[in-house]
């Protein structure tokens, strides 16, 4: 039972972590598709 709960917590931690990391590795639509002459924000 403990292993199951730890795994579920791990899923949440991985999800939050990957969300933070993926935003910074340069694969967002903005990074991939827009040029310096495009203002999105």
């Amino acid at each position, binding site marked *: *039972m*403990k*292993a*199951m709960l*730890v*795994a*579920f917590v*791990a*899923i949440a931690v*991985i*999800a*939050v972590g*990957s*969300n933070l990391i*993926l935003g910074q590795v340069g*694969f967002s*639509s903005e990074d*991939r*598709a*827009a*040029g310096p*002459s*495009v203002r999105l924000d």
Partner: protein
Amino acid sequence: MLRALIALMLTLSFISTASAQDAPAPDRSATGGAQTLEDIMARQRGEDVDNSFRSGATGDPDSAAGISNQLGTLGGSSDPELWRALRFGSADITASNNGPAATVLVQDGGMKWLLFREGPLATYGGYLLIGTLVLLAAFFLIRGRIKIDGEKTGRKITRFKAVERFGHWLLAGSFILLGFTGLISLFGRKVLIPAFGHETFAFLATGSKWVHNNVSWAFMLGLVMIFVMWVVHNLPDRTDINWLRKGGGIFTSGHPPAKKFNAGQKLIFWSVILLGASISVTGLALLFPFEINMFAATFAKLNSFGISGVLGLGELRETLAPHEEMQYAQLWHAIVSFVLMAIVLAHIYIGSVGMEGAYDAMGSGEVEEQWAREHHSLWVDEVKANESASPQGATPAE
């Protein structure tokens, strides 16, 4: 049944080829070569229309009128010809944003994808899951819970270590989340918006997208973990033939001998590994749009090995627009996920309500010895032999 179906498909394909060859070239003099009412009606009837008469009619810049002459500023292409070039993807387009998708303005493969996604995919996928649940319920009513036959010993054997259970639940928990959020994404427009309205679905869809994109990494990690930990125990061997021949003893008394995993569990394992890997790869292609293109290459392989011919798919297209790569990735991702969901429903059933004592293996990791003897007799013998070879508390020789 299958043979009859293939014969029917072959016959139909011959008929359609024959009619295409016999049909005379349509007379388009009334429209000056543009499409006729008959062309439009044929397309609306779902027939294949040869578009070459207009896909190539995109003007001729070389014979353009001089710039100061009438219509000279059009550069040899009339407006309809320009739109035609956009429609059939042959226009020379420069866009200020980057990426392979930026210069495709009209992508009519998208319509096929959309119709397949909300039509057969959602319909048959839904039937598959509901059908599986009905079958499992029927099985439960007929067979009931599979009980431990012999008298319980009260002794426990360690079946799965904590790290194995962690890997299993990492995979299981993430798969259930991904399954639900994937279904929410697929059935949004057809089912959830009509049922709950746009406001509720907007909230659900935003959350589902976040969960689906980010939980996917836990699924892939869990998949690698269980593969590494259990692949040795899941290699096919002689005991599997006997186990399968006796149907796992599900409808008979007595239990065929099995090692740590019986043939049924091995089938589940390899389904999860192979289908899970396929879902992961297509999922990565969807997470990083236009970065991972594999369908054109796969179709080329299927063509060169003649597999597409055997399956009656004809010659598959080896050049795909960037969007089409994504569309095929989405469809394959969903189709394989439906199959895996159906398999996993059966797995959840037998590991919980379907069999007494089975849940302990993944709950505490300790199973009743009598349960283990009935379902995994060869494995118990192995464990006992190891125990007697190295009794607990013995100091290992150094």
